[in-house]
């Protein structure tokens, strides 16, 4: 009478878990396909798309990087509502280096990634002792206030911003640098989070006091995580600056904070693949909905609520569960 849903690993998953996976092409493909498909997509997509959708792909990659940077922080137990801080810092750093010091983009982008990461870390360091929602509140405030500061003090071009920045030599270079960075971030950070180092980071999220008990200085690890996430965000900002040849107050706008979070929530938090998947769904969608104007942001808000309440695991975890397990109804034993 009473039935419950039972989830069982697929045979192919069990068979391909150890060295015997090498015995059949089918099982090797089962293992390799989820990894190869995104890499192949990153290589082929720029070639297939037209000029307009290539631009969209650029912003997909930028938002995917921001979403990955958000997810690194979230997996360390720091929920940020201010990815725009990282993005804006990177954008302004590279713009200043290029405009005032005349450095070439090949130099400004890596320098801005590191410098932006350092500045963001220093700005947020006083807040690191706070946990949970306190940290979140401060991260929401800082970029919005920096926007006012720039508007008020008129530094770095004030409300006008800085325009006429140098561009990278070709659009193919822009696209493939971003695609390479995205691939490296996706697989590199995934590997990092499963190493011992990543274990400490996730430990800080799950139970910081027991990590402290193990004699580990959690603040030092939080600073490192902040720097890593900050650098990724700053890199995205620096790239975007040199693509649009402009930097101004909009880089601190709420869009750059909200869209990455929405992407992670839709894709699935806790796995960087989810963050990238979310960006690949949301950014083209928002491009397609461009006709709706301001209503797009309303949709993001509604999306956030629906996914947080209705499907908290996100699309990626849903798909990966279907990929490795099947479900059936089973009798409940009395």
């Amino acid at each position, binding site marked *: 009478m009473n039935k419950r849903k039972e989830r069982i690993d697929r045979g192919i998953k069990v068979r391909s878990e150890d060295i015997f996976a090498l015995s059949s092409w089918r099982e090797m493909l089962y293992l390799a396909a989820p990894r190869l498909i995104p890499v192949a997509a990153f290589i082929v997509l720029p070639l297939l798309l037209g000029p307009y959708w290539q631009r969209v792909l650029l912003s997909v990659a930028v938002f995917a990087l921001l979403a990955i940077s958000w997810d690194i922080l*979230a997996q360390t137990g720091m*929920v940020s*509502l201010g990815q725009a801080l990282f993005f804006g810092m990177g954008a302004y750093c590279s713009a200043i280096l290029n405009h005032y010091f005349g450095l070439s983009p090949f130099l400004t982008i890596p320098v801005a990634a590191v410098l932006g990461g350092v500045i963001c870390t220093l700005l947020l360091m*006083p*807040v690191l*002792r*706070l*946990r*949970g*929602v*306190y940290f*979140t*509140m*401060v991260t*929401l*405030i*800082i970029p*919005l*206030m920096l926007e*006012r*500061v720039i508007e*008020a*003090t008129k530094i770095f071009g004030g409300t006008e911003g800085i325009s006429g920045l140098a561009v990278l030599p070709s659009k193919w270079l822009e696209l493939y640098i971003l695609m390479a960075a995205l691939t490296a971030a996706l697989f590199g950070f995934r590997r990092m989070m499963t190493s011992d180092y990543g274990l400490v980071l996730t430990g800080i999220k799950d139970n*910081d*006091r027991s990590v*402290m008990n193990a004699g580990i200085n*959690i603040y030092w690890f939080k600073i490192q995580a902040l720097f890593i996430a900050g650098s990724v965000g700053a890199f995205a900002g620096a790239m975007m600056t040199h693509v649009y040849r402009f930097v101004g107050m909009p880089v601190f706008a*709420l869009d750059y904070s*909200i869209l990455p*979070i929405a992407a992670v*929530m839709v894709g699935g938090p806790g796995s960087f693949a989810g963050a990238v998947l979310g960006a690949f769904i949301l950014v083209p969608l928002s491009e397609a909905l461009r006709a709706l*104007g*301001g*209503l797009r*942001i*309303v949709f*993001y*808000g*509604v*999306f*956030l*609520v629906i996914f*947080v*309440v209705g499907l*908290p695991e996100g699309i990626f975890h849903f798909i990966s569960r279907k990929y490795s397990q099947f479900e059936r109804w089973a009798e409940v034993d009395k």
Partner: protein
Amino acid sequence: MLLGTIIYAVINSVILILMSIGFNLTFGISGISNFAYGALYILAAFVTWMLIQLVGLPYLASALISILFTAFIGALMYRFILMRVRGQVLSEVIATFGIGLAILEFFRYLGFVGVEYALPVFIDESFMIGDVYVDAQRILIVAAGIVLVILLWLFVHYTSTGLAFRGIAQDERTALTFGMDSDRIATLSVSLGAGLAAIAATVIIPLGTISVSQGYDVLINALAVSIIGGLGSTGGVIVASLVVGFAQRFTDTYIGSHWTMIVSLVAILLVLVIKPSGLYGKQKELEERI
């Protein structure tokens, strides 16, 4: 000059108290950080405006209806969305922020931007205090702030619902064993917070116009004041509002109006470095911070 600055600093502080007390109260009672707070503030203002301009009700009646309406929206928000993610701080924050974003940007989409979206003042007069002109609306704000704080204090100390609020805030499990319904209290707390945002909107907004971006400003101010004062502490909110209010007004007069936002930012960072739990945030120190 000095007297004028002090008077306007007091008014500014009371505005900050009004803006942040609802947010802080909700957090103090049920631990929900309502990031839709700024949006509810703007929602109340627009509902009042629509009732006056489109339906033609008198000002006082429409203000009252809009306060009740906003409180009702707050309750709905808790019942249908927040209750499902209760206790998961991250989800609560993202859900409320999503709701706030949707409300604010929807008003922006509808084209509610411009100087005609303003609420009338209650009394259109001005007084002289010493040699400083102060208009009646600003005095009304100060009075409303003081009355509201006193009423809230009486409410949480002398009514059974208020005592239940404090019980839940102090120890939710013990309160449950005494038969207090935690979900009912949380609904009421979110609803009360929303109502307070609406009251703040009806008295503060006649000073200027209703604009969507103000919603974000209100949220930032509420967060700043609550963090400095210590989240969940009403005394902390009052002290922090006075500190920030005076600091803002004095920098405005003596250094330049550009620097007011920087003052709040520096104040937040300084307080967090010196005393991470805020000025008066003792109660939950062990639980929430390390």
